[in-house]
């Protein structure tokens, strides 16, 4: 077979593979959306969940998911940035760097239920954080870090070396060059990583069941005192997230409309991730343009 024919054949195969995947994606997404969207109402989004009776909403779970996302990013992004910068800018090829890379990969391969139980015994019990958003956020950091670190490293590496040399040749410190020149240029890539990991946070259940807990006590959305037990901002309160809620209504709940709640919640979850995804991209582009002054 000659090269031209091979080229056509390979192109055909790739289009076929892409077609199958697209079909699959569309099927899954429409399955979830068609099953769920008709049941989403304003009331569903804004009322509290019910244990035994129909008509419960997901207000608290939705908020908890978002808040947990925020806290997890606050905990894991700095560490991920530091580690990513180290690997991309400071590390040399030696056993220590290898050790770090292996560590990061080990973190990524931990089963979530193991992290959940570890988090339960260490954060919830030993460190006495209790079932809390904070325990959940720390546990999720375990999953978040590998993806984040790897992504930040790759994004930094993909910034041309010329930029680094430009900064260094002006007498800027390596750190300044990295943070003020290389990092902004790597921002779009870093953002992708953040979005990917955010998806994981939204969807994680097994690790949270044992750490953030599976109950959502009623909180007061007007109480801004972060230390008050009823405040919605208190990171020390237990918080059932949307994914955990879906798990719960499907496994042990006796709510009569469990099916409705779980399909509608799944759809909400997807829509929220979509909004987050697009929003983060939009903001990222805007930020990038602002930093780089491109119009």
């Amino acid at each position: 077979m000659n090269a031209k024919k091979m080229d056509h054949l390979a192109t055909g195969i790739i289009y076929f593979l892409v077609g199958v995947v697209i079909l699959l994606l569309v099927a899954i997404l429409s399955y979830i959306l068609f099953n769920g969207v008709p049941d989403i109402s304003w009331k569903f989004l804004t009322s509290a969940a019910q244990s035994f009776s129909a008509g419960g909403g997901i207000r608290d779970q939705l908020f908890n998911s978002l808040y947990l996302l925020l806290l997890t990013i606050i905990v894991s992004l700095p560490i991920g940035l530091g580690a990513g910068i180290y690997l991309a800018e400071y590390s040399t090829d030696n056993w220590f760097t290898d050790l770090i890379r292996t560590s990061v990969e080990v973190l990524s391969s931990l089963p979530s239920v193991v992290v959940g139980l570890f988090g339960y015994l260490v954060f919830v019990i030993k460190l006495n954080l209790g079932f809390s958003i904070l325990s959940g956020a720390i546990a999720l950091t375990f999953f978040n870090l590998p993806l984040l670190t790897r992504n930040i490293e790759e994004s930094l590496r993909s910034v041309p070396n010329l930029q680094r040399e430009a900064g260094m040749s002006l007498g800027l410190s390596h750190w300044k060059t990295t943070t003020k020149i290389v990092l902004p240029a790597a921002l779009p890539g870093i953002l992708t990583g953040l979005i990917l990991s955010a998806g994981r946070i939204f969807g994680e259940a097994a690790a949270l069941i044992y750490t953030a807990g599976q109950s959502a006590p009623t909180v007061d959305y007007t109480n801004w005192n972060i230390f008050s037990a009823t405040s919605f901002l208190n990171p020390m309160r237990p918080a059932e997230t949307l994914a955990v809620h879906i798990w719960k209504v499907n496994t042990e709940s006796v709510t009569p409309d469990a099916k409705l709640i779980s399909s509608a919640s799944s759809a909400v979850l997807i829509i929220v991730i979509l909004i987050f995804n697009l929003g983060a991209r939009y903001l990222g582009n805007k930020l990038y343009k602002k930093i780089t002054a491109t119009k």
Partner: protein
Amino acid sequence: MKQYNLNDSYITEIPGKRALSTKDLQVYYGDNHAIFDANLIFPRFQITSLIGASGSGKSTFLRCLNRMNDKIAKVDGQILYRNVDINSDKINVYEVRQHIGMVFQRPNPFAKSIKENITFALKNAGITKKDALEERLESSLKSAALWDEVKDNLSKSALALSGGQQQRLCIARSIAMRPDILLLDEPASALDPISTSKIEDTLNDLKKDYTIIIVTHNLQQASRISDYTAFFHLGHVIEYNTTAHVFTNPKMQATEDYVSGNFG
């Protein structure tokens, strides 16, 4: 390729004030010995060209002069600047680079506005007064012959400029730091002839205030703009003399072959 005796070299005495000199400079990339015993003296307020075939080590040598090779290569020997050996471990390399600036082969403006490209490093070096920054901005862009082209949209992204403008911006960025010495690594190789001649004009103007060391592939360029020329071959400095001598009356066979185009 013809074999030349690499240990044979002709290095002329340099009269007048020296800006920078190297003594027995060796560079190794891992096990690979890239520069052998380079002993060169660069005169003040003159333009010196480094010429030689690809892989002759001229760029490597240039990058050693402001310690840009620190991370990638092992550099032995001395580099003397103001009687200080700036190749020592104890030297503050950031300070070195503020006095010995560098412009690279490909234009590499920061992804920031034109103004920020110039002022960014200045602010970081402690110049924060607005007037001072404005003054440096204008004077450096004027020196690089870019002021008239960009003065109306200084907040535009530097990436929107043409290649030649970008390279002149990079020169302006370097001289805004008011260095003593300016190192240029084939600054015009990626540019069209018009941009190239603008850059050459700029360098000629800069000569009165700066010591310039330039690596170039372009022999005409070397002969047009430089006062001294050093010829590199396989990591050895073969000949170092005034440009006129190197091009019209080379002392070494290798140099003669190279400048006459009979090389390799």
